[in-house]
């Protein structure tokens, strides 16, 4: 645990938070379902980086790598199902505009 480890952590934290801001802003502001999925991918990458950098600074890289690998695999399946849903929405309604899915009031 050297001083540079803490420095590395201190450099990563602002950038991870910035990446989260980009992702969340994109999800809230965009109208296109596929772009919402892109935003979701961005925030997942931020979480991935967070786990890896925490593993690096606590000298626990094997654990962090295993967790990261499992996270990536799970993310693939979720994105695949979400893409399938978008394609089915397009087949049923002819557009992927998010304004069309405001039918049900939350």
């Amino acid at each position, binding site marked *: 645990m050297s001083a540079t480890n803490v420095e590395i952590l201190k450099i990563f934290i602002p950038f991870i938070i910035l990446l989260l801001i980009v992702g969340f802003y994109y999800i809230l502001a965009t109208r296109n379902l596929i772009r919402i999925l892109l935003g979701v991918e961005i925030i997942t990458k931020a979480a991935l980086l967070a*786990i890896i950098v925490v593993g690096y600074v*606590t000298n626990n890289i094997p654990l962090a790598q295993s967790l990261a690998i499992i996270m990536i695999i799970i993310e693939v399946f979720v994105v695949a*199902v979400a893409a399938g849903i978008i394609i089915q*929405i397009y087949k049923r309604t002819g557009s992927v505009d998010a304004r069309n899915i405001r039918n*049900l009031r*939350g």
Partner: protein
Amino acid sequence: MLALFVLIPLAGVLILNLLRFDFIKKIACWFGVLLTLAQIGFVLFVPLDLMASQSGFFGRYFASNFTMDSLSKLMILAIGIVVFAAIMIGQFTYSDDTKRFNFLNLILLALAGMNGIVMVSDIFSLYVFIEIVAVASFVLISTYKDKLALESTFKYIVLSITATVFILLSIAIFMLISGNTSFASIGDAAKNPGNSTLVVIAVCLFICGAFTKGGLVPFHGWLPDAHSSAPSSISILLSGVVIKVTGIYPLIRIMNITGGGGEPVKNILLFIGALSIVVGALASLGQNDIKRMLAFSSVSQMGYIVIAIGTGSALGLAGAVFHILNHAIFKSQLFANAAAVEKQTGTREMDKLGGLALKMPVTGGTSIVAMLSISGIPPLAGFWSKLLIIVALWQGAHYTYAFIAVVASVITLAYFLMLQRKVFFGKLAQGLENVKEAKFGLVLPALILALLTILIGIFFPLVYNKLILPIQSILK
């Protein structure tokens, strides 16, 4: 031995798919029913030590990773009951054989995932199994691929992934302070007073994720849409266990392990719980669709559970966990009634229904039982759990919150009375003259669940001593 709860449904799915006979598709659902009955029987009649023993063939694998304490035992009981009801309703509401077979495969995998959630002792494995249940629910909701279901599934996906990212960030912070992801090491690290700020941040992030998955206000946007546009048996699954097992149970575990995170976290829980109770109850008053009203009622009841956890006392925890079990039973039964009404009359809108009490007596009778239980009328089960919650609030000197809980109970009674009047009593609506009672298979789960509600209410002291009291031992 405990791994069997996860491995047997998995093996069942593999076997069912490898045997390519046509009649398998017809009898598949009964295999699922048998499995869930076995799970309920196992958890009720086999003592805890025998189940957790690490000898024997299966005991050696995953031995140190699956544990079961009394909270898990109660959750597995609730999971077994609700999945049993969901499979039985699914047997009679899916029109297509292939769709029913896919439904059974996915619900067995979701069952394996849910059993896994309540038995792991590691926060990252908790995330993995939560994702299994989430992906299975995405697919199950959108089985019929109609427009409404697809829209609500997409909303659910986006909010679920946001919740997952919050949970992952909190796992990263927990790893930072403790170096490992198991519950034991997180608990040890949380006791260290130097870590307290980081623990509070991590717990807050985690509970944001858990609130979203559990459907609490203000993250409840996906819940009414998803629960009302899903097929009937999936609504039972979602409202009955999924929101509790993926939302409330992780919340209880984290609060338990990290010692609660102090006063600010408890105040957040109390406030969000009260907010959900009020918003859910008020929103239910204005609904026309039966299932949408039941979905908002679920939001309200989740608020009750969270506000009880927020008191931080042993009595509050007991009330919360008992309410989890009760809500699983009576909400599943209400959705089963809605499924019967929808199948026999073809509509779910209360404006178009009326006077069904004479035509569908069993459905009407069981829904009255559920209504009394959910509003907290003695001697049914719901009365006891709401009493525990309100007493815990009173003892913790949260008088305003106790008052809100009591008033919301009255509002609950009001909107369910409105449901009864519009659907079952009153004049027989047009076009409903030929409606008969639903098939026996559809009515049987509702009967069993109503019977359970009555029995748990009458035999409350027995249930309390056997199931609820041991849970307080997890609070140290």
